[in-house]
């Protein structure tokens, strides 16, 4: 088991190293260096106003005048220490910026995942087990609709209906639980749809397995078969997706936070993209990748608790 964890950690570290290296390489290999990209595209600045001396000064202050391998090594060294330098546009350390915005996004992501899991699991069960076929297919269609609607559109519809028409929730802002509800719901819908589809499919597969027949032959009730036998086995493919779901919610937060004018990591992302603020973008890519690796590691460690057969398999591998 410990060997397995070590292997997973090494693999995760490799993925992060590759992500950091790739983002470094791409930034430095594309035509036009970071400084001219910064000066040329940020805030519609006119390059002709900037003297060559100013460009050189900026380049030196950002350490971009050093040889590329040296830049890479120091970049890598700093990344290991979670230091991604300073934001091109605000001059603030990137890590501080992200750390300050993190609580708002984490609370949004957690509430949204909670809603997604609750509705997703509910829809999957309803779509598989309701005793009436039309009701089943109705729930099945809602899951397809869930993955098909753009989340920015859902967010706007929610604002128009629940904020402007009915005045139940504030349309924008960061304060309190009421301002969290609409963003969380609009962010949860696509995730819930994906979750419901995967879980529903797995439940249907599991219900066709011989052990379900055995359980029924032994006289187990409908609910017991579902909870004890079907869902437990069906939850494995769904758990594989949790890492992707967390990443999806974080990426979706860019849009949601923009629409609801919330100051979070998603908002920082959008601002950084608009200003071509590469240190911030690189840091965000790194943290997103790290989160994915971490969540998947945790999921891998939880598998054997759900399905004891998996321990045997990893031990044999």
């Amino acid at each position, binding site marked *: 088991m410990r060997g397995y964890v070590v292997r997973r950690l090494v693999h995760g570290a490799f993925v992060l190293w590759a992500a950091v290296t790739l983002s470094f390489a791409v930034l430095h290999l594309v035509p036009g260096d970071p400084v001219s990209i910064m000066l040329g595209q940020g805030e519609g600045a006119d390059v002709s106003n900037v003297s060559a001396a100013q460009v050189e000064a900026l380049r030196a202050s950002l350490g971009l005048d050093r040889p590329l391998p040296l830049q890479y090594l120091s970049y890598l060294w700093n990344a290991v220490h979670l230091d991604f330098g300073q934001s091109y546009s605000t001059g603030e350390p990137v890590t501080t910026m992200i750390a300050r915005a993190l609580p708002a996004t984490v609370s949004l992501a957690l509430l949204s995942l909670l809603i997604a899991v609750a509705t997703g699991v509910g829809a999957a069960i309803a779509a598989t087990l309701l005793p009436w076929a039309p009701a089943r297919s109705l729930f099945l*269609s809602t899951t397809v609709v869930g993955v*098909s*609607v*753009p989340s920015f559109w859902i967010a706007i519809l929610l604002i128009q209906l629940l904020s402007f028409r009915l005045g139940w929730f504030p349309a924008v802002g960061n304060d309190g639980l009421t301002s969290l509800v609409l963003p969380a719901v609009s962010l949860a819908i696509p995730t819930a749809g994906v979750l419901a589809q995967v879980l529903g499919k797995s439940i249907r597969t599991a219900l066709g397995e011989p052990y379900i027949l055995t359980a029924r032959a032994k006289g187990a009730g409908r609910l017991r078969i579902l909870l004890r036998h079907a869902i437990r086995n069906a939850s494995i493919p769904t758990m594989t997706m949790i890492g992707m779901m967390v990443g*999806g919610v974080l990426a979706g937060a860019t849009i949601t936070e923009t629409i609801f004018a919330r100051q979070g990591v998603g908002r920082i992302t*959008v601002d950084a*993209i608009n200003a*071509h603020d*590469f240190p911030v973008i690189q840091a965000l890519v790194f943290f997103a990748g790290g989160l994915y690796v971490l969540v998947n590691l945790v999921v891998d460690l939880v598998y054997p608790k759900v399905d004891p057969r998996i321990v045997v398999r990893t031990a044999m591998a």
Partner: protein
Amino acid sequence: MFDTQSTSATQNAHAAVVDPTVLPAQEVEYSAGRRVRRWVAELVRQPGLVLSLLWVLLVIAWAAAPTVFTSYDPIAANAAHSLRGPSGTYWFGTDNLGRDLYSRVVFGTRQSMQASVVAVGLSLALGAILGMAAGYLGRWVDDLAMRVVDVLIAIPGLLLSMAVVSILGFGVTNVALAVGVAGIPGFARIIRAEVLRIKSSTYFDAAQASGTRTLAILVRHVVPNATGPVLVLAALELGGAVLSVSALSFLGYGSTPPAPEWGSLVSQGRDYMGTAWWLTTFPGLVVALTVLAANRIGRALERTGVEA
């Protein structure tokens, strides 16, 4: 030898299971006819699928010949008619400059769909190269390709696309490329799996034993046999690409005004959320219906592919 398969893209999905190198030509012909009948039966049984196909046809028609569907100019302002609600004259209402929203949606179709198709094409092409190399060559090529896929998967698709756009610069083409990059891992994985499956088949051994060259084996045996699952993924990915392209355009990375595009239409309508609900509702609805149709068709392909 493959003439019977090339009649339509949909039939290829089923051809995946029927191996024409083994069956006599007559038998292939027969099963092709049966496949068509199964499709018709499937269509009759599923009105939702019929609607999805019709909607996709409509969207293609919008993209191909927008002028057939509307007589209004999508760009010229008409201040006297600004912010009118949906009516018989203006089906989707008008925007703040008095432009007919329905025309803007119809004319925006081409940009949205072009970007989405280019994105899926790029994902498919690069994913196929990666997946084929990994599955066919194996060894370190496989390891390397799959590690690349691991990295691409670790970064959430939308964030990856946004990062790519920030490097390439804004614009519809770059948005399409960025969305395409995020779609590579899915295709690479499925194509690798298909190659591995085909590699273990007897007709593959036969081709190799009879001295067929590697490239010929790939083109003649692997490509036609992998078409089914890849087609299913392509349909689903097209829906995803429409979503991503519209999301990136919504954030303002896509088309430059005044040229209409679905995502940017929703974004422009945001300024009038409280007064003109139609400006955000209709373009968003069109996006949702298109993605829904693509998903529906993808699932139908998947089901018939499994049954065949």
